[in-house]
């Protein structure tokens, strides 16, 4: 008798789950911190679920997940780390998708420094050129591809200074220690346009798209809040927020993944 009652109780709970507010811890690449804070607010208001956000570099988050960190969802700054987690069996199968595409900008804190043709880069009239480390950061890889496409790698290499990530690269340029540098549009844009200093939006055909992938981790595969978040990131509402923060939508690029 007692057993039967408990079964009923469990079944009732199972039905109630999707309607109840759940909680999920989400690991987010630092470069996506500002839009994610905004997205989380929208998401919580719309669904009633609660999110706890943990920011860090994708490489550190990767190591943490491999060692048992309690994250349900991982929003990476690249595709390599989510793919590596897939290979390691840490990811819910077929959950990986590109949630945002970053845009690269050649930027200077000086409002008169970078014109719309990026003359400064070709003329070599600069002291230091900052870029993110191409080995570590997708924005750095894109910067290197851009310099390669413009055939400027050899002439500028001696004046490169490299940030470990795109946030640090931005610090080098915004403090004037590097007079120009390749940063993320999201760092210098308000409502999708460059709003401080001067910059050149690098044409998208000069580098591979900077795709940022999200995965539902195995720990989060039964978590209603985590599952709902994966859906929410594909909505028009979420994409409008990302666009305001300087990210493009994945659909604007041909799916060549």
């Amino acid at each position, binding site marked *: 008798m007692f057993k039967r009652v408990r079964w009923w109780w469990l079944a009732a709970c199972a039905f109630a789950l999707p309607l109840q507010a759940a909680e999920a811890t989400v690991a987010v690449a630092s470069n996506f911190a500002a839009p994610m804070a905004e997205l989380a607010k929208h998401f919580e208001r719309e669904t009633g679920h609660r999110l706890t956000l943990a920011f860090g*570099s994708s*490489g*550190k988050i*990767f*190591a943490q997940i491999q060692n048992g960190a309690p994250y349900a969802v991982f929003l990476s700054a690249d595709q*390599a*780390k989510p793919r*590596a987690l897939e290979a390691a069996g840490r990811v819910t199968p077929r959950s990986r998708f590109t949630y945002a595409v970053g845009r690269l900008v050649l930027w200077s804190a000086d409002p008169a420094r970078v014109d719309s043709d990026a003359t400064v880069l070709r003329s070599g009239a600069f002291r*230091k050129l*900052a870029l993110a*480390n191409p*080995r*570590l950061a997708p924005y750095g890889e894109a910067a290197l591809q851009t310099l390669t496409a413009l055939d400027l790698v050899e002439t500028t290499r001696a004046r*490169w*200074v*490299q*940030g*470990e990530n795109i946030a*640090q690269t931005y*610090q*080098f340029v915004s*403090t*004037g*220690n*590097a007079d120009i540098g390749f940063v993320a549009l999201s760092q210098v844009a308000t409502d999708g346009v460059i709003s401080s200093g001067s910059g050149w939006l690098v044409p998208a055909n000069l580098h591979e798209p900077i795709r940022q992938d999200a995965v539902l981790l195995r720990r989060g595969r039964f978590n209603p809040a985590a599952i709902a978040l994966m859906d929410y990131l594909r909505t028009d509402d979420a994409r409008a927020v990302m666009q305001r923060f300087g990210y493009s939508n994945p659909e604007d690029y041909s799916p060549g993944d």
Partner: protein
Amino acid sequence: MFSDSDWQAIGLTLRLASVVTVLLLLIGTPLAWWLARSRAWWKGPLNAIVALPLVLPPTVLGFYLLVAMGPQGFVGELTQALGLGLLPFTFWGLVVASVLYSMPFVVQPLQNSFAALGERPLEVAATLRAGPWDRFFSVVVPLARPGFITASILGFAHTVGEFGVVLMIGGNIPGATQVVSVQIYDHVEALDYANAHRLSLAMVVFAFVVLVALYSFNRRGRGVFSVGAAP
């Protein structure tokens, strides 16, 4: 076993730590001497300033050094006016930052061993007509020798292990600012764990050997000294 860039980082780290340790002893010794003996009211505040780098997270300290040494910062304006250019992204920029960052590790052991000496040995030396410099080098330095060794070890080790400050003002330039700690971090972030483990292991083994050598040297040194000083 190591790539060329790893070797370059190892060489650079040793060079940086050696230069910084020498500078720290040159600056830290008079500073510690003064702090150990002065009764000025601003001794307390100065002591606190020397200890401040212990409190600030290294990346935070590095960020403010980046701002201060930049073209709009007061240090940057000074170095530019002197025709030295800007310090960030240079070897000497790292030297300046490391000296600031490791200062408490050198000043505090020296200050403690100077304070522990007391007045007596100096007074005795003065009655034997030793001048101030003679007193310092013939009496204070040998007596405070364990303090000097501890200070050198801590200053050197702390510079080898320094990461946050270098990360913020270095710019990862091979041969100028790409030190071992940053190189290990790069390997980890690039998921190249094999190279990270190799380099970390080498760093730990090296540090262990150096520390063992110095500590046993220190013990033997004290023994020799006490025998020599007995009569």
